[in-house]
């Protein structure tokens, strides 16, 4: 479904060897990876610490949760939509998952919340507190709720043919409010130690639960897109939903299920972020920085905002570049404002390169 042909761009007589080579690079689906590697190597003389094992471990531990969430965003974007509600799903699932397994919260703080006496017992612990299955059960509940929330948003979009931007914005506002309402904006803490180990950095950032989970999700998502009928339907819906419907593609179901995927990946991201901060945090729903990172990384990877084009591999590249960029800007000690200016420049360059790639591919 995605054109990878560069043959027309490599014909002789259109700029010589260098011109052909540059066109080949620009048209390559691995362009963002090349840019990431060049960027990394170019920074080493200026910021030697960027190449230390500790820093690479830091970068990778930041990559995993963002990657998981961006994978779900990729599914939605290929259909031509966007899911702004992911951070709200993170907030709700973070709070509920933590409430189920917490070993004990302060009764003075939680006694007036809707969770008290329902998900959190009168003694202050979660309903599964201390049970050997509390952590896995909480994770399953988080994924289930994430999928349901995403599915509801997707179903409304598909059923009533609403713009995804508008409906997911409504879902963002609604579910963020639900997260705050559930705990009256309090964090749910005192989670089981086994839950926190999910966020451990492991060896060099690789041998950790976060890495295994993120790479597993990315691998499954890649297979789903590239090896299944459902994957082909997703591209077909993104390219031309009317033509897809006439061809027999169940467009509404495809859109709904893509939002289910987005909701489930947001919930998995919620697991990773909650484990990292060791708390269920309703304020995740206000974290527009995270939303920008997810959308930015997905787009920088090359997934089209107009639908019909995108790959999980590209999203991995985009997340790597975006995370490395954030890390480099931190290590350079630039001001908060300068960081956003540079990020804006990078997204601008990525958008320009995307246009150039399209021109080269269609030449």
């Amino acid at each position, binding site marked *: 479904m995605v054109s990878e042909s560069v043959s027309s761009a490599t014909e002789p007589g259109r700029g010589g060897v260098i011109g052909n080579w540059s066109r080949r690079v620009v048209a390559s689906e691995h362009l963002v990876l090349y840019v990431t590697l060049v960027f990394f190597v170019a*920074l080493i003389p*200026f*910021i030697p*610490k960027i190449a*230390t094992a*500790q*820093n690479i471990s*830091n970068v990778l*531990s*930041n990559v995993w949760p963002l990657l998981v969430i961006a994978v779900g965003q990729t599914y939605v974007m290929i259909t031509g939509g966007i899911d702004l509600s992911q951070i709200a799903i993170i907030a709700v699932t973070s709070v509920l998952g933590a409430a189920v397994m917490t070993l004990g919260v302060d009764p003075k*703080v939680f006694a007036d919340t809707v969770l008290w006496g329902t998900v959190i017992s009168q003694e202050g612990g979660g309903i599964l507190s201390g049970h050997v299955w509390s952590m896995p059960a909480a994770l399953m509940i988080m994924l289930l709720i994430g999928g349901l929330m995403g599915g509801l948003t997707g179903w409304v979009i598909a059923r009533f043919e609403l713009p995804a931007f508008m409906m997911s914005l409504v879902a963002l506002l609604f579910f963020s409010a639900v997260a*705050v309402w559930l705990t*009256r*904006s*309090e*964090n749910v*803490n*005192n989670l089981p130690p086994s839950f926190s180990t999910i966020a451990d950095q492991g060896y060099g950032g690789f041998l950790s639960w976060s890495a295994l989970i993120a790479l597993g999700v990315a691998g499954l998502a890649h297979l789903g897109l590239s090896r299944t009928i459902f994957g082909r339907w997703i591209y077909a819906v993104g390219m031309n939903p009317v033509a897809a419907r006439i061809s027999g593609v169940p467009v509404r179901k495809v859109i709904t299920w893509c939002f289910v995927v987005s909701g489930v990946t947001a919930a998995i991201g919620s697991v990773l*972020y909650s484990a*990292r*901060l*060791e*708390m269920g*945090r309703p*304020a995740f729903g*206000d*974290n527009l*920085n*995270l939303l920008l990172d997810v959308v930015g990384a997905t787009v920088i990877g090359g997934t089209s905002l107009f639908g019909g084009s995108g790959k999980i591999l590209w999203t991995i590249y985009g997340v790597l570049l975006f995370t490395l960029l*954030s*890390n*480099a800007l*931190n*290590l*350079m*000690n*630039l*001001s*908060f404002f*300068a960081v956003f200016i*540079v990020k804006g*420049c*990078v997204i*601008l*360059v990525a958008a*320009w390169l995307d246009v150039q790639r399209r021109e080269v591919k269609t030449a």
Partner: protein
Amino acid sequence: MIKKFLTIGLCSAAFAFGAHTAAQAQDKDLSICFAYQTLETEFWVAGHAAMTQSLDEKGIKVIEVNANEDANRQFEQIKDCITQGVDGIIIIPQDGESVIKMIGEANKAGIPVAVFNRPPNPDNPNDAIVVVADNVSIAEAAVEHLTKKARELNLDRKVQPLIMVGALADTNAIGRREGFNNVIKANSDLYAEPIEVPTEWDASVALANLESALQANPDVDVIFTSSDFLFPQIRAVLSQQGRWQPSGQEGHVILGGLDGDVTACKLIRDGYVDATGVQDLFFEADSTVEALLKAIEEGDKTPKQQIDDKGFALTQDNEAERHQDMWGCVLADKQG
């Protein structure tokens, strides 16, 4: 096409220049990472200025990172600071819970860490220098003055107090509410059950919730805000109801707060605010830096210490004699 490449070239050059400048800046001997959560309110802006000034005066290289109210981002920034091999870390955290993990990371890396003004929750198992205002006693001092004013009303009913509560994941907010409640309970003959308005330390949330609370309870006589930065929102809501009046005028609502910022100072001088609890920001900034430098000098990688700022209440009665002790009045005087 040339223009496009020029644009990219300029962006790249700016980036490279930044990297080069950053590399040059890494030459100083002692470096402190200053990780703060926001510069949204007067208090945090003044706290940031006081802290950086205190560090600059000692010739220390400061690495500043702003988390923009994102606890996860602040965690990542702390880890980046550790990677850079800083000698010490000063954190103004988003809340008292998320900072515990950050302190733990610094402890593991053997880098002394100080937490400024927003302390970790009491169950914190990690070691840090904690500089904190005694929120309970400062709030009590301010509310006691409000109580004195409330008694002078001589109403034929109980006085209706209202508190604007901060985010209760924040120890400061908890302490301020406790101080407020202590005084209300000690004067139960005077006060009706207090109304609590949640603000989550967010001005727009505070405005919406206060509007609703005052519509439901138009007889509120005393308002205590857990932070002075919410006075503009209080003014907006009371003005709508025609109750934004200076002390002594009919309809005046007895107002108090806590922080001691520029707005509060001006409003006390203009007669609208009756009292505010004052944190000694300059003392807190200097104490933080001095305690951290002492730990670095002594090679103490996991210092554990609490420094309390006793604070006081600035009121309409003592403003003339004590305004120089309040950081907001000092800044207000500088601004003219």
